[in-house]
């Protein structure tokens, strides 16, 4: 089905009411627009943990991929989404 799929990984799931979502793509939708959609599914820590709507800033420690590209290598919050895209959100991680 056309649209955008969202996959929330690991600890970041705790900020949302579901580990995955699908949205019908609206015209010109960007990561910023997607975050605004997602905020409706998120708990009170969303602004701090993912994206602060008031300041238009993403948490510098999370990684957000559109398919296999991290959005900092694209156009950040202005990255345009397309039908069939998969957006993956990773929380801060390190170890090994």
């Amino acid at each position, binding site marked *: 089905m056309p649209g955008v799929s969202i996959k929330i990984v690991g600890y970041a799931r705790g900020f949302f009411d579901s580990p995955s979502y699908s949205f019908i793509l609206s015209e010109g939708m960007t990561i910023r627009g997607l975050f605004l959609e997602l905020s409706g599914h998120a708990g009170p820590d969303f602004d701090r943990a993912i994206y602060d709507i008031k300041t238009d800033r993403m948490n510098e420690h999370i990684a957000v991929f559109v398919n296999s590209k991290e959005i900092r290598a694209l156009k950040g919050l202005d990255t345009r989404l397309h039908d069939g895209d998969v957006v993956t959100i990773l929380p*801060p*991680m390190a170890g*090994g």
Partner: protein
Amino acid sequence: MKGICGRLIRVNLTRNSIDVETIDKEVARKYLGGKALAAYYAIREITKGIDPLGPDNNLYLFTGTLTGTPAPLGNRTVAATKSPLTRTFTDSYMGGYWGPELKFAGYDGIILEGASPEPVHIHIQDDEISLVDAKDLWGMDTWQTVEAVKKSLGTTKRPAKVMSIGQAGERKDLLAAIIADARAAARGGVGAVMGSKKVKAISIIGSKRPQLHDQKGMMALVKAQNARLNKNPVTNDALRYRGTPNILLGVNAVGALPYNNFSGDENPGADQISGEAMQKTLWNDGKNWHPCWNCVVKCTHYHVLEQPGFEGKIDDGPEYETVGLLGSNCGINDPKAIALADYLMDGYGLDTMSVGGTIAFLMDCYGRGLIGKDMTNGLDLKFGDLNAWMAAINAAGKGEGNLGRLIANGVVKAAAEIGHDSMDFAPQVKGLVFPAYDPRSGEGTALSYARCERGADHLKPWVFHMEWLSSTQRVDPFTTEDKPALIKMVSEGSALFDCLCVCRFAGNELNTEDFLALVNAATGFNYTYPEFWAVGERAINLARAFGAREGFGRAQDVLPKKFNTVPLREGLAKGSVAHVDRMLPKYYEICGWDDNGVPTPEKLRELGLGFVVDELKEAVRGAEAARAA
């Protein structure tokens, strides 16, 4: 000297002699400690071509410049030697308390040479060093050994810190580890070398502290740096509550978590063995901390075992690499079973990573019909079969049957015996099993594994993090042009950590400038940044030269065929394979190595390693002859 003690203990097990020798100040300044210092001693003292399990090999148990000082996370010890598994220089590290205690007793390291005819236990209490008969300890696992050693010492002012080998080391199994404080210096068979010398245990009680050049300045640095570590979301949250497996679901989302012998598929049951799951099911909401000495991060958690026969026993971990390789890669997604396996491996004294990689490889061979039940001790050795898997682990630990022998000696020996095309899908470089990140997921990871002097390694350097997990140090995983320079730079920085013997997790917040400031405050060496950085490069060139002298070169800097030809099937990196050949020539060139990957005389002299040049002439001539032929 300040920061370091300037003294080493040399034990000759053949002659039954113990000597304390000083470290020349210029040597200390040039090599710092840990990796570089051990490599300096190893290349001078270990003769080319010797049997790694014979009396001519030496085992270097060294601390780093910052071990046992107030520096954040300065608690590690290196076990370095000529590896019986890979036949290269190997340096395996452990955290915990043993290394700091050695510093407190007044020594930077211990050199074991020769071989004892009978089992011995070495006991160090400040200036008193003794060799004690250990026939009664031989045959014990590491848990029993620690208990027996402490009992034999009676009441002491401080509890002794005990390093030991288990039954695997006694048998000289190639995957044998050295264990202390439930931490393992595991990779490369360092436990087999300790076993070949018949050294069962080394216990230490120290009553001093390393003197510091600038105590006040150092403490100010430490306070500020610990405050930063306590604010970083990785060190104060991800690692602190979800341990090293906090990354597991991220690695799985990439498609890089090993599952069913690096099948290239995501593990559909990964949620059960994630850091999030361990936090709840094993670690008392992530608060069962058992930190290493002087660590504010506290990534290690303990779990109280519940299985019949093991009720109340404590397992530290399991860590990500164990979960990934001993669990997921064998198709096992039961966290409590993995914790028990981890406890057993620590007791037998085996490398959980290599054992996991080898069991999974044998499961794959069994599934393909390349081995039958005659090689599996009669087990139906299938991926995900919990009973067969646990039986295989115990067979390895006890050295039972064909299966035990195959597992405990690693994947290359197993593949050589099995034949067919099994070497093509045996996940290893130079005989060392891959860490728990599929190298098809990123060109940096692939190059890092292939060119590493001791075989596939997740810490020399750990670029998977930069390719996929980090938001602040990000590189494109799919490009090859930038990776040679990246790997050179990051591997030298990583080697510096290994000279200081500081835990890598400090690097989530602290940088090399921070460590330069700490080292100068501790030692008074007053390094400039380029001088300091050069120690890391020196360490890598020494280790590389050690391997080159043994005949290692480009032919060994390769990944098995599967990883160059069969793409990952799922995850963010789906469809990718590794392209090491595209990157090696450039990598060698910028390292100052010849086209066979051997350090050139010019590079060695530039690094102040001119004494190695003659050692390598034969290696260079051999490579030239091979090319001419």
